[in-house]
């Protein structure tokens, strides 16, 4: 088994020891009707409606979508247009909180007794991947076992991005929920083997999980090297099972399903209390945060400005959803925490070093986990040479950013790759 390339980053996991605490309830939340890939939801409430915690406020008939629930109790003050980070516009429900956090009286634990009822329950829960990419979880579960039988569940607890410790906290705080969640998924999906993959920079988590699963033969704890991007889907599948998810394939084509560790434990909690995904743990860190760095349970829809004032982060110049390698910049501090936000990082400095000419050092090629050739892709992109781009397999690029990071000329290679993908006509 060849080792895939990657880079070593400073971990900066200063919030590691910060036990998760509830973030103070904001006066109002703004919940976008599109929080991940897939179809946006339609708003089910209108201005003036009273809502309770866990009440469904958005849904869609589309398969690639998950319902959205209110994270607070209070009154809908507006249903507005909301500009998504990707530039498109969707609706967003603004709710003034009443401070009572009354739980929706209709919530019940779901009845799960087979594959279909598990998938239905996961959808009702509004669950999406909590690791950042945010694929609706029921879509992932809904593979066809006749065509692509899955024999291994890979639990992604690599958390290879610097700063973020939210999955680590899940491992430390709720190991039993994780294990119960895994067993639940294994049982109803009929997946015999599970591998929980943790980077070796979290030895206590590895220890704890090993201890807790010592008696369970269907769960293996896999120690991964701490090298970015171990947590990337194809990389973790390869590290855990040696299987290669080829071009155009999903992990299920290789008999694998990858699930984030916090996602799987949330499935278990939902099966017990029936409370959908209305709050999530985020890591709040970065050098602009002067106070109260740590891990918080934050109601979905909480504006980032609330966090910033909690952390006295007045001179934040760059604020990220997620980690420094793949995270997305906020353009406005009024943007909210969504289901897929695993961290809010605020930094004082935004600029990166100046870009200079490519010197053909080959560093980008040597760091790309997939062995792509970003320097050649950039050339082909500038020449708008679609055939060459196809030959260079630009579509395989996962935008992990290793190439841009490593380039001594500081060329924005990962970004160019994404632009280059746009030139290739979709089939």
């Amino acid at each position, binding site marked *: 088994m060849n080792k895939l390339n990657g880079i070593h980053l400073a971990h900066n996991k200063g919030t590691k020891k910060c036990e998760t605490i509830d973030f103070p309830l904001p006066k109002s939340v703004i919940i976008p009707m599109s929080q991940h890939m897939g179809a946006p939801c339609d708003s089910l409430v209108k201005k003036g409606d009273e809502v309770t915690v866990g009440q469904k406020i958005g849904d869609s008939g589309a398969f690639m979508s998950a319902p959205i629930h209110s994270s607070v109790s209070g009154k809908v003050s507006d249903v507005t247009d909301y500009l998504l980070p990707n530039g498109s516009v969707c609706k967003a429900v603004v709710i003034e909180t009443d401070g009572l956090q009354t739980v929706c009286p209709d919530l019940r634990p779901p009845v799960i007794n087979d594959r279909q009822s598990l998938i239905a329950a996961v959808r009702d829960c509004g669950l999406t991947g909590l690791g950042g990419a945010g694929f609706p979880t029921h879509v992932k579960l809904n593979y066809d076992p006749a065509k692509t039988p899955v024999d291994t569940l890979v639990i992604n607890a690599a958390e290879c991005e610097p700063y973020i410790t939210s999955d680590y906290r899940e491992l430390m705080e709720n190991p039993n929920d994780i294990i119960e969640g895994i067993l639940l998924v294994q049982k109803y999906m009929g997946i015999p083997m599970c591998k929980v993959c943790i980077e070796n920079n979290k030895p206590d988590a590895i220890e704890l999980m090993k201890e807790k699963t010592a008696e369970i033969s269907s769960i293996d704890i896999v120690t991964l090297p701490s090298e970015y991007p171990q947590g990337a889907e194809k990389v973790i599948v390869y590290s855990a099972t040696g299987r290669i998810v080829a071009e155009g394939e999903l992990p299920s084509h290789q008999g694998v399903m990858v699930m984030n560790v916090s996602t799987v434990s949330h499935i278990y909690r939902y099966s017990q209390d029936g409370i959908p995904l209305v709050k999530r743990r985020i890591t709040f860190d970065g050098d602009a945060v002067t106070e109260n760095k740590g891990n918080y349970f934050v109601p979905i829809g909480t504006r980032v400005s609330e966090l910033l004032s909690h952390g006295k982060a007045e001179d934040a110049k760059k604020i990220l959803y997620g980690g420094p390698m793949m995270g997305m910049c906020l353009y406005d501090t009024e943007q909210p925490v969504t289901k897929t936000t695993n961290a809010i990082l605020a930094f004082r400095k935004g600029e990166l070093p100046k870009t200079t*000419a490519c010197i053909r050092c080959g560093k980008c090629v040597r760091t790309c986990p997939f062995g792509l050739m970003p320097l050649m892709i950039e050339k082909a992109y500038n020449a708008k040479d679609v055939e060459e781009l196809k030959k260079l397999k630009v579509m395989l690029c996962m935008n992990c950013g290793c190439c841009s990071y490593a380039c001594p000329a500081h060329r924005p290679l*990962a970004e160019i790759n994404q632009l280059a993908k746009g030139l290739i006509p979709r089939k």
Partner: protein
Amino acid sequence: MNGLFVSPSPHRATTMSTTKIMLMVIIALLPSAAAGCVFFGANAAIVLAVCISSCVVFEYLSRIIMKREQTISDLSAVVTGLLLGMNLPATTPIYVAIIGSFIAIVIVKQLFGGIGQNFANPAIAARVVLMLSFADSMTSWVVPYWYSDVVDVTTGATPLTASWINYTESGEAYKMAPFTLGEMLWGETGGCIGETCAVALIAGGVFLIVTGIISAATPVAFIGSFALLTFIYTGSAVETVYGVLAGGLLIGAFFMATDYATTPVTTKGKIIFGIGCGLMTFIIRNFGSFPEGVSFAILLMNLLTPYIDKLTLTTPFGAKKPVKAEKTTGKE
């Protein structure tokens, strides 16, 4: 709170930069350049200084004339100047050194778009042009320490031009190395300013390999293939070792055949490049009309680099071979 900085990911960058890489190369070259100054005296230092300063000035002026961003701070012109100077004899007239710098920077590097764009190594291309145009001054090799010889400048043979044939008193011919191994390693032989001190060159090369600035693939393939061929041809281990230590092979293998812009990107490509250089050097040294072939070999391989690059693309992880279109059955 306005004025948030928005940029695509990643939001972190290496602390390495082109300037730092060039600085490392300069550091790696210094021991050998210093050795050259010791062996060949102040003249050597003057040639090096002239080459470096004129390369920087030409780079500066070219960027101004072409109305491009200034690039002298990336230090690549310093590296080119240093390498060019190290590849000239200490007795090179100043004007020849300046012409060499002009060829290297203006014609070979900047006319093709500057750093990273040139097809041939500027220092090598300049050396080759000078060799062909100023054959006399480019091949008058002074012996080391000539400057302390008050009588006259002595020119002498280099390890590549000196004869191995000696005669016993009774007139029988026998082979003997013209220099001792110690002289070869320390570089107390005739030659270009920076090419003679094998110890310093190897130390510099190893430094660059260990720090990850260059890949070991090219020098190993270059020196290895040359040594193998020489050994097969001469059958003599001594001659093989002398061949490796002589002339521009070490400086070429470690510092010029590893130039990023003009050599292949992938390891496979670098190995092919290195073997090509070793083979060409062997052929030119043994069968060509020039005693030295390193520069020509590297220059020739520089020209082949785009093709080697095309043939040695990486195979990305999980990439599928394009499915060949099914042969049409000829119905239409």
